[in-house]
């Protein structure tokens, strides 16, 4: 299946699903404990996954998984947020909320991937970067900023899948890539609807309303020109049946690696830069700049 076909298919598939699921229901699916984690995808998409640990600076952050693996005979590097399965595991992994050393580990693996010409596959699934005393002390802001900047300089293809929650800067810290795909029921937002509702109305129980306004679902972000495509899920969510989702992901990884490997490093970086530079909406001298220009009047 080509990428264009996939986009069209996704667009066709979504409206039927949309009638069934509200934004809030999608968000609950994205956050569901039953939802497959990054590790579930990694084990099923790749063979011979070797996990690599630590940022070589402070400690190993279990909320970020990283390593190298084999995909269709080629070696790839993998990074991803890991929320954990059991309650104990979730606590250990801080519910997928990373500290600076987590992002620094991810950056270390991105640079390692570059040295050995391995494409990078990233799995985004986080409520956000962890807001805590130690995270601030160790430079949460610096870690997030550096990862984002450096990702534009990593000279191997990067494919990003938002598999569950794409929570703000903590998501973007491993979310810059040449192709960004979202699972059908994943969400991606600048702020959690709870925090948004608290700020806007001083009432976090109005989160479902905030979720609607933030336009955080995969179809929203495809329409707004932020993502490249939607990976379909089984009815009721990917936890019911991963097969359809996995086969699409495999096809996307395979195609993307093939099409991007032909590019020179300079072409790759320039295109990645231009792709993100297009994600802006403003008016200047009566001209409106917006990714899909037809959508704004």
């Amino acid at each position, binding site marked *: 299946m080509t990428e264009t076909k996939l986009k069209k298919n996704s667009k066709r598939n979504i409206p039927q699903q949309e009638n069934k699921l509200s934004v809030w229901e999608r968000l609950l699916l994205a956050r569901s404990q039953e939802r497959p984690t990054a590790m579930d995808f990694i084990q099923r998409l790749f063979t011979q996954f070797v996990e690599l640990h630590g940022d070589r600076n402070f400690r190993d952050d279990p909320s970020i998984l990283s390593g190298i693996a084999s995909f269709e005979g080629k070696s790839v590097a993998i990074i991803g947020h890991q929320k954990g399965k059991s309650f104990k595991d979730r606590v250990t992994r801080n519910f997928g909320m990373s500290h600076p050393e987590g992002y620094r580990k991810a950056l270390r693996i991105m640079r390692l991937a570059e040295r050995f010409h391995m494409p990078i596959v990233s799995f985004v699934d986080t409520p956000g*970067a962890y*807001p*805590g*005393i130690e*995270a*601030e*002390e*160790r*430079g*949460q*802001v*610096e870690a*997030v*900023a*550096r990862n*984002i*900047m*450096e990702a*534009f*300089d990593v000279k191997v293809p990067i494919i990003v899948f938002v598999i569950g929650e794409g929570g*703000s*800067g903590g998501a*973007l810290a491993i979310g*810059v890539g040449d192709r960004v795909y979202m699972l059908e029921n994943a969400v*991606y*937002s*600048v*702020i959690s609807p709870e*925090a*948004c509702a608290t*700020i*806007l*109305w001083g009432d976090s129980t109005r989160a479902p309303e905030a979720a609607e*306004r*933030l*336009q*955080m679902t995969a179809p*929203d*972000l495809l329409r*707004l020109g*932020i993502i490249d495509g939607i990976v379909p899920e089984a009815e009721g969510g990917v936890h019911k049946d991963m097969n359809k989702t996995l086969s699409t992901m495999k096809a996307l990884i395979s195609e993307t690696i093939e099409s991007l490997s032909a590019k020179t490093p300079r072409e790759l970086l320039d295109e990645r*830069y231009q792709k*993100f*530079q297009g*994600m*802006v*909406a*403003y*008016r*200047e*001298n009566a001209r*409106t700049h*917006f990714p899909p220009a037809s959508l*704004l009047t």
Partner: protein
Amino acid sequence: MGWLTRSKPQGTPGGPEDRTAGEAGRKVRIPEGLWIKCTVCRQIVYRKEVERAGKVCPKCNYHFPITVEERIEQLSDPGTFEEFAGDIEPVDPLHFVDSHRYPDRIKSAQKKTGLKEAVRIGDCLISARPAVLGVFSFDFMGGSMGSVVGEKVVRGVERALERRVPLVLVTSSGGARMQEGIFSLMQMARTSAAVGRLHEAGVPYISVLSDPTFGGVTASFAMLGDVIIAEPRSLIGFAGPRVIEQTIKQQLPEGFQRAEFLLTHGFLDMVVERGRLKETLALLMCLFSPGDRICSSALSEAGDGGG
């Protein structure tokens, strides 16, 4: 008009409420009276003396919030600031409504501040050295970064690259502008990517953080300066103090997220008082390009005068 204008009472310095004094202080404009009461130390100080020091309390060194115009005046040589990208205006990509429509919020912020958006950017001279200078306004929707702010920062970078002159950005921001949703998040990527090009080209970028700088602004271009400076006591961080307190259910340590705290932890190069900011910028700019005509004389002068 009274002789004494009392600003809103704040917590005692160093007390538990002091942490938020910077935030609350944002709302306090220095009033018109001849004497004013300092927001932090609560001492009564002569207004002219405060203004002469660039709006700094002579008793406790509290840096009062200043406007974009005042900042530009303090940092650039008189009459040299030439704004560019001033016509870029925000749109409402999500048709966002909370208690007000987003376009109405923009209009009222524009009316309140006289600015078109939360940042102004332009060419200028700083002690006769050419630079690109961008200054944030916290009064404009909390200095939040939406598409226009992102675009202006990117244009500032492009301009600095094209002219090969240093970029100086003075931030004060609550972070991303949530009314622009995912577009505001993507400005973190756009601005950080642009700064990467500046680094690659070897064009200096000096980031100046003023009170407060948080969220998506700190977690992108603001933390990527070749040199990072902050004004004394500025609150700087990722998550706001209240969010952290709610998350960890603990009181935050004394001085947490203050400029001095970041300096100790290695995330700032220096904390510089407002009165010395311009000379510090000028010196750094010279040290980054010592071959420059103005700089070679300035640097040797400084050397001659040393000791």
